[in-house]
């Protein structure tokens, strides 16, 4: 059994854990204190050596991302923290910022110092007002305690942090769409290259990191590279949040070394709800192809999950038992991608529109066998053709669910309706409504 390793979440249970004093009393800002005495290059090297990979889903090595910045030219360089957590299933960054915003602030101070940035931004999704309050307060507290502003701790290092609220758009989690949004534009992905490291915010060199990635920096600096690298697998090092949701007894945040398995995690979560068994689950949010019980022992690291046909993503395990209709689940995800498609490119804009129509028809029992093939054909016209990864993501649940549960799609066609009782899947009792109120 793999042990859980609460690091970022260690202080969440404390009284007023979000306060500067609480954070500082538990080792907070020790890493920043240390970092400000270090050589900038050594900080970057430490993060590189730690093996930390982006925790926002893509898993790109964080230190390498920093290393891509060109040599300083005297102009501004920016750090932008991606706090736009919106991936269905992902629910780790929001509790992090709610319970321990200073972890993020401290990580930003260290990162900004290392990359030579004096104005950093946190782009937090707008639909979590209390998180925004806590972040704003944390910034104010950090300033009051001399951690932000001019000549921080007498080192000559200056840093301002602006907390910026989004306004409801999943696509802004894509880093270049986020930058456009932060510049006051529609959040539509940019052409790459140039990559943000070269021309990001205001066309200046910019590092964009996920909340959890940035929050992982202070412990790496404080406890050392070896400590971090001792966790996880060879290529997927360190600890990370595994967010369990759905039909398990104790859904929640489980901070564990990468490489832990779903079987272990579900067991820690008390197992499946009483009297039910696992049917399918997402390893890393809705954008990652679904898994079934045959993948329970797949180590949850980038390589193993990839080899098994999915992606580690944001380590968001949405777990569904046998009462769940996979067609209904996928239909709703498909609606989500259509709703969140930014509209920029043809495959995603038109393809998700078409996919939703077909999925609705199928779930309502009005589809045909040809529709199942059309689903796959349309997915083929989207995957690998769209401007950004949202198009690919939209096809992931469809393609994987047809692969594992084709017979369930067929039953919807042959039986002329959904064979499942929705009430059975709900967490509370109710009489099944005769018809679905899908507005």
């Amino acid at each position, binding site marked *: 059994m793999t042990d859980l390793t609460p690091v970022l979440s260690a202080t969440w249970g404390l009284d007023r854990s979000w306060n500067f004093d609480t954070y500082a009393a538990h080792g907070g800002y020790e890493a920043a204190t240390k970092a400000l005495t270090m050589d900038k290059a050594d900080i970057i090297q430490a993060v590189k050596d730690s093996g930390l990979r982006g925790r926002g889903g893509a898993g790109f090595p964080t230190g390498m991302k920093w290393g891509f910045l060109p040599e300083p030219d005297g102009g501004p360089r920016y750090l932008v923290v991606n706090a736009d957590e919106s991936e*269905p299933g992902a629910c780790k960054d929001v509790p992090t910022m709610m*319970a321990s915003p200073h972890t993020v602030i401290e990580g930003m101070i260290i990162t900004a110092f290392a990359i030579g940035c004096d104005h950093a931004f946190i782009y937090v999704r*707008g639909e979590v*007002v209390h998180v925004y*309050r806590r972040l*704003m307060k944390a910034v104010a507290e950090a300033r009051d305690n001399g951690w932000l502003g001019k000549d921080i701790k007498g080192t000559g290092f200056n840093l301002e942090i602006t907390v910026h609220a989004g306004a409801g758009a999943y696509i802004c989690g894509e880093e270049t769409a986020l930058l456009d949004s932060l510049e*006051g534009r529609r959040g539509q992905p940019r052409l790459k290259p140039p990559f943000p490291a070269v021309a990001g915010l205001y066309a200046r060199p910019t590092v964009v990191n996920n909340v959890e990635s940035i929050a992982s920096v202070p412990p790496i600096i404080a406890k050392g590279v070896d400590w971090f690298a001792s966790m996880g697998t060879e290529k997927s090092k360190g600890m990370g949040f595994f967010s369990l949701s759905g039909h398990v007894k104790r859904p*929640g945040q489980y901070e564990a070394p990468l490489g832990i398995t779903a079987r272990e995690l579900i067991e820690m979560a008390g197992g499946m709800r009483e009297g039910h068994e696992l049917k399918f689950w997402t390893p890393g949010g809705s954008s990652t192809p679904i898994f079934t019980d045959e993948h329970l022992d797949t180590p949850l690291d980038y390589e193993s999950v990839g080899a098994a046909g999915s992606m580690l993503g944001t380590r968001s395990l949405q777990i569904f038992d046998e009462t769940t209709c996979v067609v209904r689940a996928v239909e709703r995800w498909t609606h989500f991608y259509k709703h969140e498609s930014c509209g920029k490119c043809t495959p995603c804009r038109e393809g998700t529109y078409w996919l939703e129509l077909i999925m609705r028809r199928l779930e309502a029992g009005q589809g045909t066998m040809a529709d199942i093939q059309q689903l796959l054909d349309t997915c083929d016209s989207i995957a690998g053709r769209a401007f950004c990864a949202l198009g690919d993501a939209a096809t992931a649940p469809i393609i994987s669910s047809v692969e594992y549960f084709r017979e369930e799609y067929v039953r919807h066609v042959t039986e002329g309706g959904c064979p499942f009782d929705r009430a059975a899947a709900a967490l509370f009792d109710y009489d099944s409504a005769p018809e679905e109120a899908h507005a």
Partner: protein
Amino acid sequence: MTYDESTAKQLSKDAAEIIGRYPVRRSALLPLLHLVQSVDGYVSPDGVQFCADQLELSSAEVSAVATFYTQYKRRPNGEYQVGVCTNTLCAVMGGDEIWRQLSERVGAGHDETTPDGKISLERIECNAACDYAPVMMINWEFFDNMTPETALQLVDDILAGKDLVPTRGADRVVSFKETSRVLAGFEDGRADEGVSAGAPSLAGIETAKQQGWKGQDK
């Protein structure tokens, strides 16, 4: 422009503060639109023009942004923005049924507001609280582990003029306009209210504690 003098003055003052947070003016557009909502309760045509004037943009460029993001409302919003997550996980866990009963009770559908201007209903997408499913958001405060009964009770409380207490958030839900002002970046002094984390957020550390795991710190 139909803002009265004192409103226009306050708006300009607030706008100047917002614009001052960014190295480039245009970055202020999203918070400015939240600011407009805090005054008008939605993105009004006057508000669009106000933002355009502040940032030297065309009104088309402002509406291009205002119509891209779902939090910006084009019609006067209810005092309470009531959202039910109907993305897959919440929907399956009961969100669909909560939505059905709520919509029936309130007498409004998606993106509709009650005639008394109290409640705007919305089906929302995943709000990053899946471990608390089914989830509702009222003025973007968390209401966790909902059932049809608890959801309907919230509506009753709104109609009775009672304060609503989020599961994880401020001590009470402030109005849509007040919320919008916070989202424009103006602190309302409520950051210290509410809990650090709910039980699911602490599930991992509780488990570790029970198991005596000290992680890599041992």
